[in-house]
């Protein structure tokens, strides 16, 4: 994975269906109203499409997808 940060951002932009996600990498996506249950499922689908990593909803905590930076950390741990 050449750039996990970029991958995290791409996935979240696709899942939340808005570029606003990229404006602040520490923005709380739940508080900003950009992330919801459907978007969190989309995160799993986007991840699967791009990397082939297949996860279940309970593999990802709310805190893992709260911000772009947190999601990047999560990805580093999961897919190295």
């Amino acid at each position, binding site marked *: 994975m050449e750039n996990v940060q970029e991958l995290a951002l791409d996935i979240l932009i696709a899942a939340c269906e808005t570029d606003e996600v990229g404006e602040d990498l520490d923005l709380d996506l739940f508080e900003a109203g950009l992330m*919801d*249950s*459907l978007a*969190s*499922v*989309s995160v*799993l*689908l986007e991840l*699967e499409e791009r990397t082939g990593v297949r996860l*279940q*909803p*309970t*593999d990802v905590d709310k805190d893992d997808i709260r911000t772009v930076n947190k999601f990047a950390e999560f990805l580093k741990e999961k897919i190295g």
Partner: protein
Amino acid sequence: MVFSQYGSIFSVFLFTLLLIPAVILNLCGKRIKYYGMLLNIPMLIFLLGLHSLQMLQFLVFIVCELILIYGYYFLHKRVKSNGLYYFAMAASMLPIFVIKLCVYTPYDMLGFVGISYISFRIWQLIIEIHDGHIEKFDFLSTVYFITFFPTLSSGPIDRYHRFLADLGNVVPKKEYVEKYLIFGLTRIGKGMLYKFGLAFIINQYIIRALPEVHTVWSTVIYMYAYTLYLFFDFAGYSHFAIGTSYILGIKVGENFDKPFLAHNMKEFWERWHMSLSQWFGDYIYKRFVLNTLRKKIFKSRKTASRWGNMVTMLVMGIWHGPYLFYILYGLYEGGALVVTDIYLKSKVYRKFKQMKCYDVVSRIVCFQVIAFGMLLFSGYMFAF
């Protein structure tokens, strides 16, 4: 003598007194874990009775479900089979189905306190085994998790890994006193105010004072009164359950967050009976959406999500009992979520949100939708 859980000031008082040894243990720097497990036994006897049909059913149920969980866990390590997973899920669901359907047979006295909520904990374990999240079972901790008495009859529904982490923890004295003991006692106090104060008054002086013959007017009064009654009764119960759990060192999740301040039905379910809606979200809605999209049953995420809402809410309705009005309630809540989703994606909403009156108007409208749902849920319109 059998107590209904947190059903009277006396039983709350008695239950709280029995927590004193837990406090002493923590102040001596010891774990509360084993006292909690020990206390669970007399508490279950208080709630179910000793030589009762309830206790007998409870014991048979727990033993069978434990055999199933351990059996599935053991086999899952060796064989990865979806058939096995579906079998384990179906088998674990069988008792609750049979017991709930017994209302239509002469054996309608079957059933025991907490079967619905204990079942949530068991299903969760089976799903987590399937997902490969459970490496090792500790027998006593698993039994304690499944039968944890403070949340036995109506939740909040806890999560296995979170529960286990708290169980192994010795909280530092100062933190325990502030964030567990005083917090817990405050919650129990709030529970008294909600359940024995507000809920009691609404029930005694409004609901019970209504005439026996249902008119349009009495139905409207009942709708609002019942909505408020249900909130204060259930939130009161949750205060007791959460307070008791905290004093035992278990930081169980919350159940209510000012639900009547919600602006729309989606937000309402993030504020009302949260431990249940999160459970249904994680284990039913998200899995339904994920699996139907993976299998390409639905092409668009929006469609999958809307069907997911309908299915989840219908299951939630039926879970309350096999009655027509619960099915209608489930369809109503599912439909409300779909309409909310369409509304939230519309231009009207974006414009409306900028207006000054948005907060007040949307809360008032949302409360009407909530209250009508509660009226359906109460079964009042179907009882003559």
